[in-house]
């Protein structure tokens, strides 16, 4: 049977993608950040997934104001890097896992999650930057990826608890897939940041560290934090962190922290990163 072997959380800052693409990872500004991912690259080369279930959000690239799904699952064979306005990132196309993706879709819809099925979608930095951080710059990505896009742009976004319970439903679905697959689930976005208005540049280390602590130890309690607290304490774009709860919901109650990293700043953002096994 398929099984979820690990969870990864990471920010997906577009400037980080640009730093990789432009060969700036050893610049003074970027070096400390990329050092925090050295362990991760080693770890993933020793624990290579067959499939990554990659929870991220689209940033007005695949979805305009014409259609905004709360939860969209990519069931296609292939997803191309989106042109976000200055040409697509020069990273490999993403290969999906249509069979597992549709198995999960069928299972979680029957568990009352109202997914939107997507068979044609370009994937933006929200999805490709985490792949670059974990896998570097290969000719092709070393595993299949199921893109799972969450609306965190148009308020209201799904609640933390909704996301956490969705994670549990995804776990149940993966566990019942009758092929031997090593699946990782990644939750991306965050941590504290605000990209707009006079409060732009907000960073809240105490909030972020507390979020990391609770995500590890008390995810259910954390899941009950209302949106308002994300926005107040983590900034208007800090609401992206609800996506980490989908990842966490798919893991056991008790997890082993293989890696924990936190860094400020990456452009406007605090960067957080966890590798959890169970």
């Amino acid at each position: 049977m398929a099984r979820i072997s690990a969870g990864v959380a990471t920010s997906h800052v577009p400037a980080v993608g640009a730093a990789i693409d432009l060969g700036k990872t050893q610049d003074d500004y970027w070096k400390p950040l990329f050092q925090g991912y050295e362990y991760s690259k080693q770890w993933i080369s020793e624990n290579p997934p067959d499939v990554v279930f990659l929870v991220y959000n689209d940033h007005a690239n695949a979805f305009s104001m014409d259609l905004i799904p709360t939860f969209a699952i990519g069931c296609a064979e292939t997803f191309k890097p989106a042109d976000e306005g200055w040409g697509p990132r020069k990273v490999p196309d993403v290969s999906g896992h249509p069979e597992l993706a549709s198995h999960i879709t069928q299972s979680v819809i029957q568990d009352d999650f109202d997914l939107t099925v997507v068979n044609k979608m370009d994937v933006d930095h929200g999805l490709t930057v985490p792949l670059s951080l974990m896998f570097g710059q290969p000719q092709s990505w070393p595993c299949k990826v199921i893109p799972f896009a969450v609306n965190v742009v148009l308020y209201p976004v799904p609640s933390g608890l909704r996301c956490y319970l969705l994670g549990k439903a995804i776990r149940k679905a993966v566990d019942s897939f009758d092929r031997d697959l090593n699946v990782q689930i990644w939750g991306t976005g965050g941590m504290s940041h605000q990209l707009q208005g006079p409060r732009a540049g907000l960073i809240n280390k105490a909030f972020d560290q507390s979020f990391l602590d609770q995500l590890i130890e008390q995810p259910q309690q954390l899941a009950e934090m209302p949106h308002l607290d994300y926005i107040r304490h983590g900034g208007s774009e800090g609401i992206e962190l609800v996506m980490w709860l989908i990842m966490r919901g798919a893991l056991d109650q008790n997890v082993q922290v293989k890696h924990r990293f936190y860094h400020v700043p990456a452009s406007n953002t605090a960067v957080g990163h966890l590798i959890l096994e169970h």
Partner: protein
Amino acid sequence: MSIDKPYEGIAGTTIFDHDMARQGYHLNQFCMSLMKSDNRERFKADQKAYLDQWSLTEDQKQAVLARDYNQLISLGGNIYFLAKIFSTDGLSFQYAASTMTGMSEQEYKTMMLNGGRQSEYPFPDEKGV
């Protein structure tokens, strides 16, 4: 409407809810059009003429021309959509963010390098929350 908007109490912050989205619909869709390089060229060649093809309010058009991002946000723009404008200008997210804070780009950069805008936890100065 009587949907609660508890987030209205957060200073310096506009939440992109459905009311804002309705107000900004055409503005944001104009921004999306800048994802195509043809459209970027046409916009750059004659901004006003390009804007006139969209159902924006006069205020929205003026704010685009002035690159007044705070004003654009108050008129229903969402930052991920507005990003298509400053990307077309070849400017960074960090620069654009700085213009909204009243700081120079350098001041803003320095603030970020020093750990970002400090916020206490819990935030002490919210009204009504």
